[in-house]
């Protein structure tokens, strides 16, 4: 059977390979650690922003998958460090001999598979963020007034804190607040004619005003915040039309949150790609080192040239060999006869 992708490895190139592998393994450990930190950060952010994403959104699966993939990459890196260190030291190598094979299989299948899954999620999931944010923010804004309804009583505080922290107003702009009743009916005076008029003029009986909550106010504005009667240009004299955007935050929370989350997902995705590359290199290097040292019978300092390879033969040949070996193991009786015939023949020839 001809080995697949053989590489002749005399002593010096073997040592170089081991040293380079040691460096790459530490880089892999670093990359794995960074992925753990980044996905942890994303998970914490999602915990705060969870109310603004629709419950059916699958986005939290991305940092969870990345967390596991990062941990496996970290483990692979540490194995690589240990193995490459051991391959330079004759006393340390023998315990690694038996373990390296299964570890390589686990690393390729498990680690590689996880990284591919995480990368796939990083590419596919951010697209679903748009709809999820649309739905989540819409629900949050609609429940702003429900400070006494169990299950939604935190909506006002969360929306206010979101607008203050991310410096945004409404979903796509401040006018979104004009279409939502954000003043709870409990604080509306039923004897006030203006209130009664507004409610009666609305089809659904909602109290809609052209005002916004205080959290939309922009501190950079030179004048105290104008929150009410924003559509009435005569309501606020001396309002400078050249600076319309300074009074309230100009951006909508949808755009701000989308950009923020997509940036985080993008960073995570690029780190996953780099880690995938590093892991592939480390696993390849380990495989070549392992097979080269097996060729020498596990003796590290052997001066002889050996070959490192990926697979001992082509896939078809390997499967055939495995099949035959399996078949032979199931036929014990006929095995006894041929060896039994051979020794008497030898005796005869000797005699």
């Amino acid at each position: 059977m001809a080995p697949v992708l053989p590489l002749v490895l005399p002593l010096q190139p073997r040592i170089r390979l081991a040293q380079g592998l040691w460096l790459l393994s530490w880089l892999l450990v670093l990359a794995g650690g960074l992925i753990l930190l980044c996905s942890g950060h994303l998970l914490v952010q999602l915990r705060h922003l969870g109310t603004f994403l629709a419950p059916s959104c699958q986005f939290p699966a991305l940092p969870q998958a990345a967390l596991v993939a990062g941990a496996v990459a970290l483990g692979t890196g540490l194995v690589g460090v240990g193995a490459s260190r051991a391959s330079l030291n004759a006393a340390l190598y023998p315990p690694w001999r038996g373990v390296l094979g299964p570890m390589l299989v686990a690393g390729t299948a498990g680690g590689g598979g996880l990284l591919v899954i995480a990368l796939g999620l990083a590419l596919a999931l951010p697209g679903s963020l748009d709809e999820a944010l649309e739905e989540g923010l819409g629900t949050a804004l609609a429940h702003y007034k429900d400070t006494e309804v169990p299950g939604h009583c935190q909506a006002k505080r969360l929306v206010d804190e979101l607008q203050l922290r991310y410096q945004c107003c409404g979903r796509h702009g401040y006018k979104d607040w004009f279409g939502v009743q954000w003043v709870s009916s409990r604080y509306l005076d039923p004897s006030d004619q203006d209130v009664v008029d507004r409610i009666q003029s609305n089809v659904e009986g909602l109290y809609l005003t052209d005002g916004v909550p205080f959290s939309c106010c922009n501190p950079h504005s030179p004048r105290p915040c104008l929150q009410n009667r924003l559509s009435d240009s005569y309501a606020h004299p001396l309002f400078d039309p050249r600076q319309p955007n300074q009074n309230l935050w100009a951006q909508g929370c949808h755009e701000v949150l989308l950009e923020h989350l997509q940036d985080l997902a993008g960073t995570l995705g690029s780190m996953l790609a780099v880690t995938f590359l590093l892991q592939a290199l480390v696993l390849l290097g380990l495989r070549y080192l392992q097979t080269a040292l097996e060729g020498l019978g596990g003796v590290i300092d052997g001066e002889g040239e050996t070959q490192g390879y990926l697979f001992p033969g082509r896939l078809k040949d390997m499967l055939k060999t495995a099949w035959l070996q399996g078949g032979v193991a199931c036929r014990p009786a006929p095995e006894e006869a041929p060896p039994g015939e051979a020794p008497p023949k030898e005796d005869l020839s000797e005699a």
Partner: protein
Amino acid sequence: MALLKVKFDQKKRVKLAQGLWLMNWFSVLAGIIIFSLGLFLKIELRKRSDVMNNSESHFVPNSLIGMGVLSCVFNSLAGKICYDALDPAKYARWKPWLKPYLAICVLFNIVLFLVALCCFLLRGSLENTLGQGLKNGMKYYRDTDTPGRCFMKKTIDMLQIEFKCCGNNGFRDWFEIQWISNRYLDFSSKEVKDRIKSNVDGRYLVDGVPFSCCNPSSPRPCIQYQITNNSAHYSYDHQTEELNLWVRGCRAALLSYYSSLMNSMGVVTLLIWLFEVTITIGLRYLQTSLDRVSNPEETESESEGWLLEKSVPETWKAFLESVKKLGKGNQVEAEGADAGQAPEAG
């Protein structure tokens, strides 16, 4: 009678030197930590220097930075000394410098302890500067057109939002100053004219606060204007309403923030001080035990290490004597010169 004598054989000495070498390198890390703590505090104080009248004392962060740098220098030197201590040839080079070096280390430890104490004690001066600075900041809130003060509104608004506070001691501080600029007042309105006329200084005072005082946890939309007028708002009683605005004053909020910061820095510095004292004691034992190795060739011999050669009162007396001798030394020389001249003359 030596103070705290300990017997050291060769192995123990080697272990002591190795342990001290490791501890010194950890201590360099600790010095970097102190340096970064001081830098962080300095940056935090700078960030809010607008509301502190630009007159806040930077003594604590500056001394932390200085101590951090000194600690790194001294401890890396000590590490080098401990590394060389096991080699008699190299150690002979360091021998004459060790006593003064240890004296400097003791001084350094005393100063470090004082700096750690300062972290706990200097919040009083901060309180005064904060009170003054916030008062002025609120006064200049409306001067968004005056160059040099145009940023004050933004600073105070962001401060109140971030620290969840309102005014200097409470939200009523805003009732006493005019925080709405004249530029945005409609002087043709009767209400505005009445208010200004009724005020002695001609200021436009309202019982209202800026939007940044609003508390997001309130169940009702924020009531910013006519706060003390119950009839202006439906189902509202300003005496019992607690969630509408932030209750805490910004002076208390900022003070508590900086106090907790300086307290935690003080605790960390005290822990590092304890570590440094341990290192100095270890170094002293190493020095005395190596000095007492009678035969420099026979490094295997046992020797004794101690903290002080004689007991504390005797050491203090000897120290005073040596100081007096320094003073007398000049006199003796002068007398000797006179005596020498006198026989010559005579």
